[in-house]
């Protein structure tokens, strides 16, 4: 799946940003922004993972490259005359962190980042990783070898990012973890919707990271996001493997404890002057999770949170997701106007949610012929079988109404 997605991504001609975040946003948008009328509602419930596509498209825009720092400082720093802490517990912590930052270095391809992290940080066998990413063991072995060769030949250093580099590098790590999580939740190609082992590894990694970096709000933000997303795990897919829309999910099945825990983490995170991306995405997800029924969802609050998110993350995908929320507050016409402005952005060229959202908005405006055209476009661009079947079923249903 990942290999297929990666080769697909290479075809995308788009400016690139932090794919992981975009991935996260897309995921969140579609799991929480329920669109009430028929066609659109599915959008909100499906954890879409065009991660690798988005990563490819997003990666170069994002890079804020690290400043020069000392390379592999060992025991003493002669200039400062200090003894670097050699307490074994801290050293081990530092080593683990350095390894995580190495595996998630932006110079490595996203699929390599994920594979390396699972292999070196989680200690998963090459065979198991291959299985989780639906490739042969040979392919995964080659992928790992190439990544290690790049690290060695290009001299990707094993070091803690400096204070200046930290925000971007940490975001890269969080992105990899989130990518693992969402890969586990949906496959962009392939037939099944969830792989729980990936989800579990991602959760485990986040806890490890939280332990190693207890002061980082964004780590807690990611944890909150994973908790609230996973809280709905049992209700996203039906008995026959079909997608269930957000407005139809049985909220009593949602893990209230996980949601409450996420809420505490987010509350603290929102106290920052400019809350981080993961904190805000988690906050948005919580607005959904805490609504007793779909109709009680506080869409105004969601729009407000998106406004804040766009300040530090002016991504067209975030703006697109905001437009969906706007449709719930100001109506479909206002939202359609926003989407039409956004779709000019080359970064959204092959993003199948654009026509899918347009289809829903047009349908709500009773412009059915145009809606159908957009649905077809979305279908063409969708790669996940379960999603495709959902979309196709929706279209059949609509066709029979006409």
């Amino acid at each position: 799946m990942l290999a297929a997605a990666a080769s697909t991504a290479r075809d995308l001609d788009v400016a690139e940003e932090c794919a992981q975040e975009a991935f996260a946003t897309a995921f969140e948008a579609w799991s929480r922004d329920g669109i009430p009328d028929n066609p659109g509602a599915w959008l909100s419930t499906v954890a879409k993972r065009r991660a690798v596509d988005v990563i490819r498209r997003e990666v170069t825009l994002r890079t804020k490259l690290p400043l020069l720092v000392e390379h592999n400082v060992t025991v003493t720093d002669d200039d400062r005359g200090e003894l670097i802490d050699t307490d074994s517990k801290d050293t081990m912590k530092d080593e683990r962190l350095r390894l995580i930052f190495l595996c998630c270095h932006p110079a490595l391809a996203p699929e390599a980042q994920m594979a390396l992290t699972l292999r070196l940080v989680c200690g998963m066998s090459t065979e198991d990783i291959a299985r989780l990413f639906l490739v042969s063991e040979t392919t995964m072995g080659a992928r790992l070898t190439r990544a290690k060769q790049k690290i060695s030949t290009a001299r990707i250093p094993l070091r803690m990012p400096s204070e200046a580099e930290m925000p971007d590098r940490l975001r890269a790590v969080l992105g990899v973890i989130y990518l693992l999580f969402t890969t586990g939740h949906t496959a962009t190609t392939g037939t099944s919707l969830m792989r729980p082992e990936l989800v579990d590894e991602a959760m485990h990694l986040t806890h490890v990271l939280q332990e190693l970096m207890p002061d980082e709000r964004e780590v807690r933000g990611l944890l909150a996001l994973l908790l609230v997303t996973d809280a709905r795990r049992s209700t996203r897919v039906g008995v026959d493997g079909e997608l269930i829309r957000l407005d139809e999910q049985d909220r009593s099945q949602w893990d209230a404890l996980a949601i409450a825990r996420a809420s505490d983490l987010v509350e603290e995170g929102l106290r920052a002057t400019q809350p981080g991306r993961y904190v805000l995405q988690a906050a948005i997800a919580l607005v959904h999770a805490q609504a007793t029924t779909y109709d009680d969802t506080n869409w105004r609050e969601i729009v407000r949170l998106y406004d804040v998110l766009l300040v530090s993350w002016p991504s067209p995908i975030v703006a697109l997701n905001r437009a969906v929320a706007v449709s719930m507050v100001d109506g479909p016409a206002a939202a359609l106007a926003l989407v039409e402005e956004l779709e000019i952005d080359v970064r959204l060229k092959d993003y199948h949610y654009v026509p899918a959202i347009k289809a829903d908005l047009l349908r709500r405006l009773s412009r059915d012929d145009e809606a159908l055209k957009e649905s077809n476009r979305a279908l063409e661009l969708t790669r996940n079988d379960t999603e495709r079947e959902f979309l196709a079923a929706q279209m059949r249903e609509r066709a029979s109404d006409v």
Partner: protein
Amino acid sequence: MAEYAILLYAPVLDHHEDDGGAARAEHEQHSEDLQHAGTMVAAFALEPHTMSTSIRGDVITDGPFLETKEVIAGFCIIEATDLDAALAIAKTNPICHQGGGVEVRPVEDWVIPTRHAHQH
């Protein structure tokens, strides 16, 4: 210490930008900065891609080797301890905010022979 090549890419434009030499001045300043810092090994600015001639097998054609939207505008070789250091330097190249970008590739082997001035 390792050497890295920084390949500068600029978009192919239909029109010629006349900025009064501002872009060029930035590159000259950047080159001076790198020389000052001791990180520069060599740097080359190439004439526009329209001046290129390519050879494939026996065939000679006008223009760059690859038909792409962005073409190589120049390249330099720098010295850096590791990739992070090299990326930090590459990122400051003016081409990055002039609509182009850079590729950073480790140098496997290099030679700059000493050249003597020709005497006529």
